[in-house]
């Protein structure tokens, strides 16, 4: 064995080789803040768990002292109700953080930037081996309702058509509503940072950033290029004057769609009164989807 020469040994002794323990990717503070934003569904525990990423939650007070949490936007609300229905869960309440109630499945407040297509809700599933799959908003929709009319056992043709009507027409109307109406509590609806919202400059940037993204949801601007094909000067004027970016084309289209809804809504009410009491799986899912939109609009108004 060759002896290490003295000068070299001295150099290495000055810098002793030590192995440090690995640095964790999350810190306790980080985990705590994730945990704070989580709202657990009530129900039985299982090995696999899921997490629904939503914009924000609203606290609903009820008579029995427990307050329930529901997502603030219609699509997430519909999704969370369908999830509860399919998995036999109950909506998160104020005491579902305690272990005996919680199911391990949760709703998580997120920024829309967290989703790969910058669109919420997203659905995170951890299976028994804690492999994680991420489902985007459109994948959730397909998972709830199988679009193949020949293979879908729960939905008949008519129900499938109606389900698609909700997904396309009402979702479009929701996007149009966001773009056209001046919304009072936009920061609460999309969980914008309250500290930043105090200052005019960052709040302006946050809102612009949000409005920039909204037309991309469900490929709305791709499907309606004629609405965004407007005069640039008109766009800039609107952007400075107010928080909405409605232009002539957009607002006319919004009016048009509202008129159609006015026509269709009584039909829906009649349909729900007479047909949906049979309590099949498909009809319940339809109902939850619709309820998501209707009750969210009601909450925005109150």
């Amino acid at each position, binding site marked *: 064995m060759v002896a290490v020469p003295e000068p070299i040994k001295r150099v290495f002794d000055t810098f002793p080789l030590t192995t440090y323990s690995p640095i964790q990717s999350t810190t306790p503070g980080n985990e705590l803040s994730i945990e704070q934003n989580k709202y657990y569904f009530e129900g039985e525990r299982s090995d696999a768990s899921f997490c629904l990423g939503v914009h924000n939650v609203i606290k609903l007070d009820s008579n029995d002292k427990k307050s329930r949490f529901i997502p603030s936007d219609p699509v997430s609300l519909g999704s969370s109700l369908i999830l509860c229905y399919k998995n036999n869960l109950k909506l998160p309440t104020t005491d579902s953080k305690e272990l005996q109630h919680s199911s391990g499945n949760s709703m998580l407040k997120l920024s829309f930037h967290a989703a790969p297509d910058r669109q919420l809700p997203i659905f995170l599933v951890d299976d028994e081996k804690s492999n994680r799959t991420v489902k985007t908003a459109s994948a959730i929709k397909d998972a709830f309702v199988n679009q193949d009319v020949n293979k879908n056992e729960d939905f008949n043709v008519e129900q499938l*058509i109606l389900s698609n009507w909700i997904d396309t027409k009402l979702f479009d109307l929701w996007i149009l509503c966001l773009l056209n109406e001046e919304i009072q509590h936009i920061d609460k609806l999309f969980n914008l940072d309250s500290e930043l919202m105090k200052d005019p400059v960052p709040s302006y940037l946050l809102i612009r950033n949000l409005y920039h993204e909204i037309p991309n949801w469900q490929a709305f601007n791709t499907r309606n290029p004629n609405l965004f094909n407007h005069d640039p000067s008109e766009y800039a004027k609107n952007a400075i004057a107010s928080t909405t970016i409605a232009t002539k084309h957009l607002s*006319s289209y919004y009016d048009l769609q509202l008129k*159609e809804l006015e*026509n269709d809504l009584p039909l829906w009410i009649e349909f729900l009164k007479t047909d949906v009491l049979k309590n099949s799986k498909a009809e319940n899912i339809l109902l939850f989807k619709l309820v998501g939109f209707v009750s969210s609009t009601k909450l925005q108004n109150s």
Partner: protein
Amino acid sequence: MLSLHVWGSYSQSDKNGSDISIISPECVASSWLLVDRLGDQEDVKYEIVTSSNTNLSDIGKLPVLITAESKFHGFNEISGYLFQNFQSSSASRTVATAELTHKQQLINSGLLAHLQHKIEYINQYNLYINTKNYEKYTRKLFQHYLPFPMMYNQPLKFYNHAQTQIQVLGLNKNKTGFFDFSGNIQDDVAETELVNEGEDDEDEKDEVALSALHERQLLAKSKEKSMLRESKNSLKCLQLLDGYLTFFLKLSDQSTANGGEYGYLFSGKGASSSEVLLFAYIYCLTHQDLPDRFIYNLLRIKRAKFLEFADGHSQKWNDQLLESDVLRAPTGEETPGLWNEIKYRSGFVKY
């Protein structure tokens, strides 16, 4: 006076030269409905203007129906107005939405959304993304619709829209990776990828003689590849279309009056507004002037009775259109010319 503004061309000398364009099935359906409802009403004057001028519409999209009092945009609103205000004549083949039961009305409006959100993009694929149809047919159409120099930009704009829109259905001209959510459109496959695939390396020694041949080989190979990709997309498109049409076929099966054959969905009396739009889409998808009629071939083999039924209606309505002689060319400020565009942009003219 009712005037319906649509995409199309009009020629005074040749009656068959006038045409309502298949680039917008909603325009076709609205015109059909107009002649069907008003065809033999003496007291109502109406015209169809092939203005091709989207500035006329408040939502930037044709068709638009202009009456003395107001404007009606899109097929849904136009059909609603026509059904509400004009009684059906004996020759009419349509049934007003109000005559249906409430549930049927709801399904009808669901089917309209289904057509406008799904089959619309099949039509876009067929007209713009299918290379043969686009280069030999669709692109050339615009010179009849728009005056110089407006016809250069418009087809390109529509082509770009179509290219992003077909991605909504998952049809994509170019390959994208599994994790590519951004939907960026890459221009082409890198040249080097093709060069490396050639296995006969010995031939490359003689640079001058063989590089031209080699180049030709490579070109042929890349052409073959893009053709393969396109036929794969076309097959996928056919499969999607077939799935979408199943909705209508199943509904027709449920309707007892039809006795096994394809027929009216809701009422034996005639077609509802969603069916008129469906026939318009089928007419546009299977139009006889298209160089690549792959959709027609599929429907002829697989859904012959359905195609026959749809064709019968579009044939009749088209004949009625030709007879009634209500088409006219745009005049004055309706023309989609450069001068009018400038006036519109600068605010001198408001529609």
